């Protein structure tokens, strides 16, 4: 395959994942308003940077992600059912319906299960990276988090550990400008990429709405990490097009937003890039969108029919072997 057609297929794959993700996002948001889904943290606005990042990874690289990483997962090949089943918390959910929506797990894709306390995945990513080096594996670790998460203890700990132990981690800050209602300017006085210097690791800023730019930045970071040159903090500037979550009312604190379909929408940015390269035209776009809509609708309907988990699954996997207390308690409950 020629280099150009190689790029073309990569880019189309990226765009397709982006459309799929956007379509799914909107589907879940509307299903939530209809009471068919309990909760959700939309990803609209952050698609390009995530997919750019995913493009730069090998399939055995590890991901310690966060609750907005649907585009990344889809691009990586995680089946859409995995995501929908998690959101439904049904019996087909990889994590057995235990976690709140948006807390994904996809072990086959080396996507670690997501926790709620923000940035607490970062020290784990450092440990995972240590393990890769120790085991002489070539895998690197990508870990994602928001701008607000840079204020946490765990960010500080992980960045310093990555510096001191020269670990193959890519810290991808999905800087959407907000931590719920707090704008990033009130979160910290400086630009986030500059924080890398405090730990002796490399820091860069990219336009996160441009998947190519993000891809190149992450690729470079991955290369360095694999070569033993240590960690990189990537400050990928994007924006949160939607509310923080389905429980959030952004009109309380925020006036400007980015409209879907506007020039700033990363999907439009991506379309323009692909059109500029003549990789795609309006007809193809329509085709991709129509296909995506059908896929999402079908999958959603399928997954919605899956029955809830057995009650018992609420109480297994606490340990390898259930404690006598829990056995007793479960007997009382069921």
């Amino acid at each position, binding site marked *: 395959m020629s280099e150009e057609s190689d790029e073309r297929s990569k880019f189309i794959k990226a765009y397709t994942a982006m459309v799929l993700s956007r379509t799914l996002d909107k589907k879940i948001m509307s299903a939530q308003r209809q009471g068919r889904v309990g909760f959700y943290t939309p990803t609209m606005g952050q698609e390009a940077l995530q997919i750019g990042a995913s493009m730069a990874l090998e399939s055995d690289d590890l991901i310690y992600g966060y609750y907005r990483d649907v585009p990344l997962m889809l691009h990586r090949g995680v089946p859409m059912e995995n995501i929908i089943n998690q959101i439904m918390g049904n019996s087909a959910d990889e994590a057995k319906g235990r976690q709140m929506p948006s807390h994904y797990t996809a072990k086959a894709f080396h996507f670690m299960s997501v926790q709620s306390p923000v940035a607490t995945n970062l020290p784990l990513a450092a440990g995972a990276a240590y393990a890769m080096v120790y085991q002489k594996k070539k895998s690197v670790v990508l870990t994602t988090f928001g701008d607000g998460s840079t204020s946490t203890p765990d960010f500080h700990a992980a960045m310093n550990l990555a510096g001191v132990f020269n670990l193959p981690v890519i810290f991808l800050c999905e800087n959407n400008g907000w931590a*719920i209602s*707090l704008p990033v300017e009130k979160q910290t006085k400086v630009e986030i990429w500059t924080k890398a210097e405090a730990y002796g690791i490399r820091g860069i800023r990219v336009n996160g709405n441009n998947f190519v730019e993000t891809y190149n930045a992450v690729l470079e970071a991955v290369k360095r990490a694999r070569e033993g040159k240590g960690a990189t903090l990537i400050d990928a500037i994007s924006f949160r097009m939607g509310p923080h979550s389905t429980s959030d009312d952004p009109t309380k604190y925020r006036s400007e937003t980015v409209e879907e379909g506007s020039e700033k929408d990363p999907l439009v940015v991506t379309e323009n890039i692909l059109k500029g390269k003549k990789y795609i035209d309006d007809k193809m776009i329509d085709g991709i969108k129509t296909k995506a809509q059908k896929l999402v609708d079908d999958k959603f309907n399928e997954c919605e029919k899956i029955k809830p988990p057995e009650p018992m699954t*609420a109480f297994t996997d606490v340990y390898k072997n259930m404690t006598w207390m829990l056995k007793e308690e479960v007997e009382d*409950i069921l």
Partner: protein
Amino acid sequence: MTEMNMVQALNSTLDLLMSKDSSVVLLGEDIGKDGGVFRVTDGLQAKYGPERVIDTPLVELGIVGMAIGMAVNGMKPIAEIQFQDFIYTAMDQIINQMAKIRYRSGGDYTVPMVLRTPYGGGIKGGLYHSQSGETYFAHTAGLTVVTPSNPYDAKGLLLSSMQLGDPVIFLEPKRLYRSIKNDVPDGEYTVPIGEAKKIREGNSISIITYGSMVPTVLSTVEKNNVDAEIIDLRTLLPMDLNAIMDTVKKTGRVMIVHEAPRTLGMGAEISAIISERAIDSLLGPILRVTGPDSPFPYRMEDYYLPNEKRIMKAVNKLMTFG
């Protein structure tokens, strides 16, 4: 008197406290413009300004640590942790600073502050938005731990907490935020710290509970016509010893209901207090109906929370014991 829910009661009490004393400030995540994710601080930043209703960066230990530094220096901060599940990142500040400053400074420095946080399940929050971690606080000498079960007590306990002169962990049962309304007096009054409330007289059995489980226990008892005395602890540290002893001696049958996990939950301490000093009065075992010793599940949360069925099972076991 105004009829209000717990969110309204807390909101208006914060307003009252701030209007009377300029040393009262609020701090936490999203408490300003946003008014808090549960709207407890709604409108207060607009009224009192960002210096008094402080939106902090995302760092719980910073919120707690800053509040301590304020409290030690003449202010009366009321800090919010958005969900109790996220408080553990501030645990060292709570256990090793907040709880120990009066003691370790020979009484020189004190920490008059309130740390508010919503806790408990029933809102489909899964593992990380449903925890009932009261044990972690109630085991920590130097802290005072309260939890209201209704709007009236919420206001009275908050006003008392602010007068205490020591740090208070103020646990708000988020499931009851909007589900119960009370007549709440407009002015000041207190619900004394350390005093439980007998919310129902009864002769055959004593049910000791608190916070989020109070309505469940009450409705179960009424629906099933159980001749039960119900004690709402309201303060978890220190507990109301007399209230516990009185009811145990009266009925001789005791059960404890809470949604925190059983092992080392509050029920353990209540049970131990009783069998230490009133073993003679007991007509049966001391039973606990609690959350199980597991994390909190999302889709199956109804199986986690104590309910009518489980409470009645225990009632029946106790009543037929012997």
